[in-house]
């Protein structure tokens, strides 16, 4: 046993010494494009795991002679043709037995997904201008997704997609719009990602998928949005719109909220000239009336809660104890949120409950605030009464002084001291 260990030790040291890499040695000495990969590879996750140039490019890294090292006979591929790149990466990444060594739960479906993506389908059809693995993940310096410098890190992914999709020239021959990145930059999602720093906020891949990138299909738009907006989806599932929108060209949530440039919703979506209801529900129709009704509820509840708040604030300013109704007001605001949520069922009956509850709280807190203000007036009345008592006492004292001094006990006229 011990002997075997000694031999193995000697052997492995010899092997380690033999792990020669002539590719890196020569290319590091070269300038320009031929030298760059040798620099970039230092940040590559594959290199960190012990892979060398030859694992992708073939050839013999143990040979010192460039001709021998890069001989086709030794399997040297040179620059990998674009159409072969996905397959080459899949060589390892779709092989469960390889990937298992780097993590027991590594995904191996990237290639399969890619083949179903528009990118993959076009590549198969011979269009080499579409994105392959290296266009998104970069080449020679492929980093982990969580690495902030990786082009597929959430904060950088939109720009990575936009490199092609926002390029009008490049997209011209596909006849697809190029405003997605620009729109996305205006959206609440980008704001959440960058301003709030919420790395779980959706980027391109969150809705379109990453390797299987494709426009979400009509029927699945709601499902895609619903992965995050769970409660909105639940309401929307009850809605009469659900079945109808499912068959239209754009489908689901995006019909009202748009797709890439999703804004914070306002009441203007329900009423007025730019209402999102107007294109389908003629002004004066049942549907349009319902929209106006819903807008009135939301607006009215908001205003009622604000009025309660201002009355309570005034009462608090006067030092009145209104912290309980102020806490209650939070419940009221929660009901406003619930009502906004229930709107997505597009059934007035669903909105009734939170709206009524909200109005009830608004009334209750308003009453509490007004009672506090009345209490303040009572305090002032209390003050007035005590002032009267004080004045009466003062008059009484004055009368006492007068009586004392009239009774002959007038002040002495002795000499003052000092």
């Amino acid at each position, binding site marked *: 046993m011990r002997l075997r260990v000694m031999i193995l030790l000697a052997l492995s040291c010899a092997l380690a010494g033999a792990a020669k890499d002539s590719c890196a040695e020569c290319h590091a000495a070269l300038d320009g494009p031929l030298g760059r990969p040798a620099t970039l590879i230092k940040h590559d996750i594959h290199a960190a795991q012990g892979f060398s140039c030859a694992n992708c490019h073939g050839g013999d890294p143990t040979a010192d002679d460039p001709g021998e090292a890069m001989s086709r006979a030794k399997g040297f591929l040179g620059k990998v043709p674009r159409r072969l790149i996905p397959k080459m990466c899949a060589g390892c990444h779709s092989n469960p037995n390889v990937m298992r060594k780097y993590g027991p739960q590594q995904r191996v479906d990237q290639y399969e997904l890619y083949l179903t993506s528009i990118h993959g389908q076009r590549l198969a059809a011979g269009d080499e201008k579409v994105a392959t693995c290296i266009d998104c993940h970069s080449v020679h310096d492929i980093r982990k997704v969580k690495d902030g410098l990786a082009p597929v890190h959430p904060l950088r992914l939109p720009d990575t997609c936009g490199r092609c999709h926002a390029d009008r020239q490049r997209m011209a021959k596909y006849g697809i719009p190029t405003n997605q990145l620009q729109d996305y930059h205006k959206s609440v999602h980008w704001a959440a990602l960058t301003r709030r720093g919420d790395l779980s906020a959706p980027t391109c891949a969150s809705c379109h998928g990453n390797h299987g990138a494709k426009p979400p299909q009509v029927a699945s738009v709601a499902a895609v949005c619903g992965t995050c907006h769970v409660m909105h989806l639940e309401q929307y599932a009850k809605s009469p719109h659900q079945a109808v929108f499912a068959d239209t060209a754009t489908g689901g949530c995006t019909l009202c909220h748009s797709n890439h440039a999703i804004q914070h919703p306002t009441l203007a979506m329900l009423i007025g000239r730019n209402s999102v209801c107007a294109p389908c529900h003629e002004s004066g129709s049942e549907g349009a009336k319902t929209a106006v009704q819903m807008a009135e509820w939301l607006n009215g509840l908001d205003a009622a809660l604000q009025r309660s708040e201002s009355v309570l604030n005034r009462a608090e300013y006067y030092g009145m104890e*209104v912290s309980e109704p102020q806490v209650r007001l939070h419940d009221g605001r929660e009901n406003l949120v619930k009502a906004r949520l229930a709107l997505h069922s597009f059934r007035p009956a669903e909105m009734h409950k939170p709206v009524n509850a909200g109005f009830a709280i608004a009334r209750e807190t308003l009453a509490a605030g007004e009672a506090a203000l009345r209490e303040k007036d009572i305090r002032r009345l209390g003050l007035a009464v005590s002032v009267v008592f004080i004045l009466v006492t003062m008059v009484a004292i004055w009368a006492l002084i007068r009586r004392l001094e009239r009774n002959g006990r007038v*002040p002495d006229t002795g000499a003052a001291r*000092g």
Partner: protein
Amino acid sequence: MSAAELRARAAGWIDDRLGFGAVRELMSHKVVPVHAATPWYYFGGITLFLFAIQIITGILLMLYYRPTVAEAFDSVQFIMTRVEFGWLIRSIHSWSANLMIFVAFVHMFSVVFTHAYRAPRELTWLSGIALLGVMLAFGFSGYLLPWNQISYFATKVGTDVAATTPAIGEALARFLRGGEDVGGATLTRFFAFHVIVLPLAAMLLVGLHLLLIQKTGMSTPPWMDRSRVRTMKFFPNFFLRELMVWYGALAVLGALAAIFPWELGEKADPFTSAPAGIRPEWYFLAQFYTLKLIPSHVWFLEGEMVGLLFFGIAAVVWVALPFWASNPDGSLRSRLVTGLGIFLAAYLAVFTVLGYVK
């Protein structure tokens, strides 16, 4: 034994042991001169009355107040909203503090203009000036306690000014703040000053001040012929009048507290920049405004330092008033003193208003 008899016997028993008789005897001899300036005699009493109100309301506030950065503001808010009549107590404490300082100033100037500081009342004057200093210290330390935005930054400014005092400035500021900057240590320290150090000092000084007044009696202005000035008994004649004035002061206090409840403002946030228009309480405003007017450099000295030096010299002159107010022949330099008093009162009034307006 009838009830009256019983009462008389009980009174006699207590009198034997406590000797109230001597006090009554003393009281019956105490007299107050009656003349045109008599109303000014009331102001010392009003100050004392307001001080008593401060002690009572202060103790009540202490039952709920917590002197830490984390809880000071919230505890004052709790007092104002949750504690039964807490709003009233806190408003009265704040209003009464300001009124007390104002009345004390009036009292001081009345003493100056009636020349009541003159021998043998030098110690009365000195103890009174010391009391005024204690009251200003009460105001400065109490102002910080609610730990709101304005008080926090005003204290920062105030201790910064203290730091420019020549020689001892840095050490003084560090002592006041309990550290390099206004923070939790400052709050704890100001609280300790406000509730125990200053009250002890004030009680001792008030005791001394009253004892001295008792010993020397009330002063009559020097332009009156003492032998021809009428007097009234302190008790009950003067005392009842004073009581009326106190009742009046109580009514004013209650009205102020109920109609203009003292604001609490926002909780202090040391990480924001100072809100616009930070200025100290009105009784420091004249000095504050003066310091702002002085150019930042005078000759080779810092402007603020020059200002403080000037204030220091002026204060020493003022405190020493009884000692230079007489000519070598013993006659009073009354015109000089009156002129200086008018000048000082005018300066304080004008600069306070300017400091408030600007």
